[in-house]
């Protein structure tokens, strides 16, 4: 027998109260692990706290933000982050889509390749980083050993500025292409076959079908991939920590995330790091709104 409704409440009010009660633990958890730390970071960013000193901390207003904007390392780290985003997507999207199209055709061996190609996604980034660091080593590395059969002086991947940036893009792409491929593959599987078949009957070739029918249909999926990858690059840390050893050579591969880490945990400048963290968060917020808009698109 159902329990009686609390006296004086309509069914709608009771349902709403129950809903609030059920959602409450989640809200409490979110406030504890997300909102409070974020508020703490914002508060910290307006002070001059450091881990390496017992000097009494005080409120210093926008000083940490002004310091960040005046620091060339901040702007360089943003440029580096953007480079990894653009270069990474320029490689990962075409290759991921290409592989997905191949696997979607169910050729012989597709099942094997479908499994094999997602292996990079399953590996721990630290293990991947170490593996690539050895492979990219100018003296021992298999990559330069192979390249020496083709060119006289292969790039010093981890020792020079530009090659190091491309090395990071290469490692990131190796890990991320399977993700792009799986997403596109899922998108392809959900597409209706009718339009492509009708176009084929009308004489359209495979390229025309792909460019004018398949690709436009995949745009929502591709936009989601782009946004996830953008967020991933903003968060990129472990690969840089291992492969280029905290963003080297010099500052060549130091992203904003890594600069924040270095400032907080290497220099012990907690308040300065908090300001950088807040700026990083502000940079990511627009992506959320774009995401929502894409989600609402028909």
């Amino acid at each position: 027998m159902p329990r009686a409704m609390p006296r004086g409440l309509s069914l709608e009010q009771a349902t709403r109260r129950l809903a609030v009660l059920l959602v409450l633990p989640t809200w409490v958890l979110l406030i504890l692990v997300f909102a409070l730390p974020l508020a703490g970071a914002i508060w910290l960013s307006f002070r001059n706290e450091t881990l390496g000193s017992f000097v009494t901390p005080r409120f210093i207003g926008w000083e940490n933000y002004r310091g960040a904007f005046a620091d060339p390392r901040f702007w360089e780290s943003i440029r580096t982050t953007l480079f990894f985003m653009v270069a990474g997507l320029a490689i990962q999207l075409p290759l991921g889509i290409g592989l997905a199209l191949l696997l979607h055709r169910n050729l012989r061996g597709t099942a094997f390749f479908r499994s094999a190609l997602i292996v990079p996604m399953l590996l721990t980034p630290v293990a991947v980083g170490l593996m690539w660091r050895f492979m990219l080593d100018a003296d021992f590395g298999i990559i330069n050993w192979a390249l020496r059969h083709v060119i006289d002086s292969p790039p010093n991947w981890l020792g020079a500025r530009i090659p190091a940036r491309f090395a990071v893009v290469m490692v990131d792409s190796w890990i991320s292409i399977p993700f792009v491929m799986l997403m596109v593959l899922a998108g392809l599987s959900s597409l209706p076959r009718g339009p492509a078949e009708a176009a084929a009957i009308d004489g359209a070739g495979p390229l025309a079908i792909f460019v004018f029918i398949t690709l436009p249909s995949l745009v929502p999926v591709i936009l989601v991939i782009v946004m996830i990858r953008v967020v991933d690059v903003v968060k990129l840390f472990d690969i840089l920590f291992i492969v280029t050893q905290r963003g080297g050579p010099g500052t060549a591969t130091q992203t904003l995330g890594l600069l924040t880490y270095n400032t907080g945990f290497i220099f012990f400048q907690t308040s300065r790091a908090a300001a950088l963290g807040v700026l990083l968060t502000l940079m990511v917020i627009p992506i959320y709104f774009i995401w929502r808009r894409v989600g609402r698109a028909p």
Partner: protein
Amino acid sequence: MTPTGRLLTATAVSALVASGAAAQEINIYLIPSPSSDAIQSFIPAFEEETGIRVNVTETPYGEAHQKLLLSVQLGQGQYDVAQFDNTFLAPFGAAGTMMALDDYIAGSEAYDISDFSEGSQEYGMFDGESLGLVLSTEPMILWYRTDLFEELGLDVPETWEDYRAAAQAISEAGLGDGNILGWGPNASWWFMTLIWSFGGQLYDADLVPQVNTPEAVAGITFFKDMLAYGPEGGISSSGDDTTNKFLSQDIGMMVQYSGYWGVALEPENSAFVGNIATAKMPLGTVDITHLAGWNIGIPSDAQNPDEAWQFLEFVLGRDNAVDYLLAGAAAIGRKSVLDNPELLAIHPYLPLLDIPETSRIERYPQLRVWPELEKAILDALPAILTGEVEVQAGLDALNEVMGPILAQETAE
């Protein structure tokens, strides 16, 4: 008295007795390393002798110092003994993380501070106080391949010019690369060493940067020049990579901390066991010894400092010095063990740890802002070493960057 009253009184008396009694356990905080393993090998004997139980927490190097700083700043009293890298002595000193050990040291015959050279005695000192005992003595020394030197009839280099000539000879003979220095993510170790050795300094007494003086430029020009006689991957080699390359490729010489010696003895790590010897680091215009290594001390919030000292005295005291090194620890420069034949068989470089008074001891800058300063140096070096900018111009720019960082040291 009511039963409740009797219970309260008994509890209060127990608490009073307990507070006056010696602690029955201590917590020690170690960083995984040969020294940490050696320390732990003494725990059973210490527990048996004193009845004090020892609990160990090991934290990887990458986060160990940050974790200890946080723990002490929160006043948790979690640890009674803590191992730390000497590079963190200044930040720890500025933050009041470690307790001054001077009274303990002065009153301890078992530890016997006079068994150390004067420079080593000061190795754990910050602002006139001993915040840590010496846990390892690791000067930068010359490592060279005896087989290559014999084949070419080369003498062991005594000056940097000898070093350059030997590196050139080995490279030109086609026997391998002439030398390796750490030109990569730990290049600051060699950057400092060469500036000091060529008569320069990183900053003056007023904390004004000095890395663009003629002496500093000469040191860094030498650093850059030697890259031409090094392996291709030298430019990206960390401190560990530098040693690994020296132990696995044909490279004539390396200047490196003695603390890496342990790996040179292991056939699985070294392709040239038996063909590597060590010597004093070549001389520049000034005789300096760049000294590095571990420290160990008592955190300022330790709950059982007396028992902690008892433990340190037991493990690192003079009587156990030989056993401690035989347990695999990185060498400590105690004068009484430097000519021990059993130890010399394992650590042939031990005599180099007896640093003569004529050699000025230099160690990591004892600055709170050192980590940021070091990063600025590491950020500037690749362009200088690869020739993207001239040495003088690159060091001028670095000098500019260092100014505001050093200014933070004294700012509130």
